């Protein structure tokens, strides 16, 4: 857990005092990723660097796991915090292996242990140990270097990580890949992470919580969905962009909105039964046909059922699209638009039908959160931003 208590930094410059961080108070629960987000110069980096004392706070305190860090030795404190700097900063005079094992060596690990650790880290960041460990940073691509930077920070298995735009130097495609890898690692490692970004999409994807900064002040601190649903003021609203409702689609899984009520027919049912069910469930156009394992095999069109006699097994069309419970709504919405559908069947990992998701449920979800928040938004427990 990281807790900042009225953390403030005032830089004395020839042009006068600059308040880069102004009474920042916030708390990152253990095992969560907190994204510091905001326009350039708003104090994200300054706030981050005060945690490992690269920048000395003018006033205020930093607590890690409840302990006031001012009482700790600076070197010890830093060795217990993984640090990824914005400019990567691999040591060009050291091999990849030496770079990764720097902190374990400082901590006095024995050789066999840190060598094995280097290989383990390489596998974790999906780079072949034998091919890369003996190379020098200049012999790697920018994206590979950035991964090594993350591996170096993780090597000694610190409980806390500070990452300053760690994926900034990577092209969008590879960035998405690395973000996914990192989230997968985080699911296992459960580090407490402060992560600076100026990319809203990255923040929404990576963050358990997002802290929005403006001119040295913390404006809003919320979970991503809540941030998008209930921006606290116009600044946050405009920073998040006009399409913030669509951004929320990324955050909601099918499983959150799917209804498990779904009318189905079997291949042996007659078309009459199918028509009956279509009416019973209020479907206008069609109904799904499943096999014995409840896997969808086709759909029966209402128009066909009305005009034809016979069994479903002889008169079905292919299923245009199904979604998995773990898909996000953005994918669902996109499939709905491209297939001109108002509902989509949902399946589990074995391909068995477990329910359906409708366009109305999606719009209702997005809309209802706005309505709920526009009234009593401030009351929610996680939006505890300081508002001086």
């Amino acid at each position, binding site marked *: 857990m990281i807790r900042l208590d009225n953390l403030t930094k005032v830089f004395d410059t020839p042009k006068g005092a600059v308040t880069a961080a102004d009474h920042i108070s916030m708390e990152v629960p253990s095992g969560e990723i907190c994204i510091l987000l905001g326009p350039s110069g708003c104090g994200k980096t300054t706030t981050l660097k005060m945690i490992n004392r690269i920048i000395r706070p003018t006033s205020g305190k930093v607590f890690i796991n409840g302990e006031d860090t001012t009482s700790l030795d600076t070197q010890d404190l830093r060795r217990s915090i993984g640090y990824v700097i914005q400019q990567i900063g691999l040591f*060009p005079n050291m091999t990849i292996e030496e770079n990764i094992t720097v902190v374990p060596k400082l901590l006095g690990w024995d050789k066999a242990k840190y060598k094995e650790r280097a290989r383990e880290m390489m596998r974790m960041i999906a780079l072949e140990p034998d091919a890369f460990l003996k190379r020098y940073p200049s012999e790697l691509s920018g994206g590979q270097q950035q991964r090594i930077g993350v591996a170096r920070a993780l090597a000694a298995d610190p409980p806390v990580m500070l990452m300053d735009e760690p994926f900034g130097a990577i092209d969008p495609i590879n960035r998405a890949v690395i973000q996914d890898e990192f989230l997968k690692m985080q699911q296992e490692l459960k580090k407490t992470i402060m992560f600076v970004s100026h990319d809203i999409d990255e923040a929404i994807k990576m963050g358990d919580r997002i802290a929005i900064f403006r001119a040295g002040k913390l404006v809003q601190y919320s979970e991503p969905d809540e941030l998008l649903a209930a921006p606290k003021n116009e600044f946050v609203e405009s920073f998040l962009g006009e399409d913030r409702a669509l951004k929320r689609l990324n955050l909601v899984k099918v499983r959150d909105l799917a209804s498990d009520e779904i009318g189905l027919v079997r291949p042996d049912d007659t078309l009459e039964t199918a028509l009956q069910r279509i009416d019973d469930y209020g479907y206008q156009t069609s109904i799904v046909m499943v096999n014995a394992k409840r896997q969808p095999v086709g759909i029966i069109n209402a128009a066909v059922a009305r005009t034809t006699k016979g069994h479903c097994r002889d008169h079905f069309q292919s299923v245009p699209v199904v979604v998995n419970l773990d898909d996000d709504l953005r994918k669902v919405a996109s499939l709905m638009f491209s297939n001109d559908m108002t509902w989509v069947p949902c399946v589990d990992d074995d391909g068995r039908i477990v329910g359906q998701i409708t366009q109305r449920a999606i719009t209702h979800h997005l809309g209802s959160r706005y309505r709920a928040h526009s009234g009593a938004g401030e009351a929610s427990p996680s939006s505890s931003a300081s508002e001086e």
Partner: protein
Amino acid sequence: MPTLNLSGAMRLLVLVAVFVAGVWSQSSGVIDDFIFYLPDIQYLAVQHLWLTAVSGSLAILVAIPLGILLSRPSMARVAESAMQVLNVGTTIPTLAVLALSMSFLGIGTVPAVFGLFVATLLPITRNTYTGLKGVSPALMEAAAGIGMSPGQRLLKVELPNALYVIFAGIRTALAINVGTVPLAFLIGAGGLGELIFTGIDLYDPVMMLSGAIPTALLAVVVDMLIAVTAFLVVPRGVNPGRA
């Protein structure tokens, strides 16, 4: 070794010159005259090398710590003016340095070594300082953020990354040193300058060349030794000579 390319051409020229001189001397019987000077050459070459070795090592031993000291953040105020002084110092001709040294240390080996030491000191200090100052702030921040102590930062990050520049300074400095040693004879410290200057005085070209050729060879050898050392010592990742 790609780094040696530029001076490689020079070296080739020297070799060709030596070869041509060899052919000429063989045909004209000068070789016998050279053999006459051989014991002198041996004795004076040792003296010559000794002057270089002592003044050079002393200079390295003083210059690197001095450069490191000046590059510390706490010295930032003094450092720039100190570097200005060193820069001015570098422009003083080495002969003048020797003369100055003689004027308050008298004649003999000590003032010679001291003069050579001063002339050698400056380029090494300057390169050590600029090399260390040139280490990217991002690296310094990474090193600090990772939890290295100031000493560890210096040894594991700053010096290795500045080493190539430092070696360039040593190379320049020793080139100056070796080139200046013949002048040391003028203040009574011996060395191969004795043959050169006496040869000039007596209008004896063979005697003069007996001093000049070994001096040139020594310069080449010393330069190569440093190049090879730099090649071996500077880590591959920051060694432009070892891609």
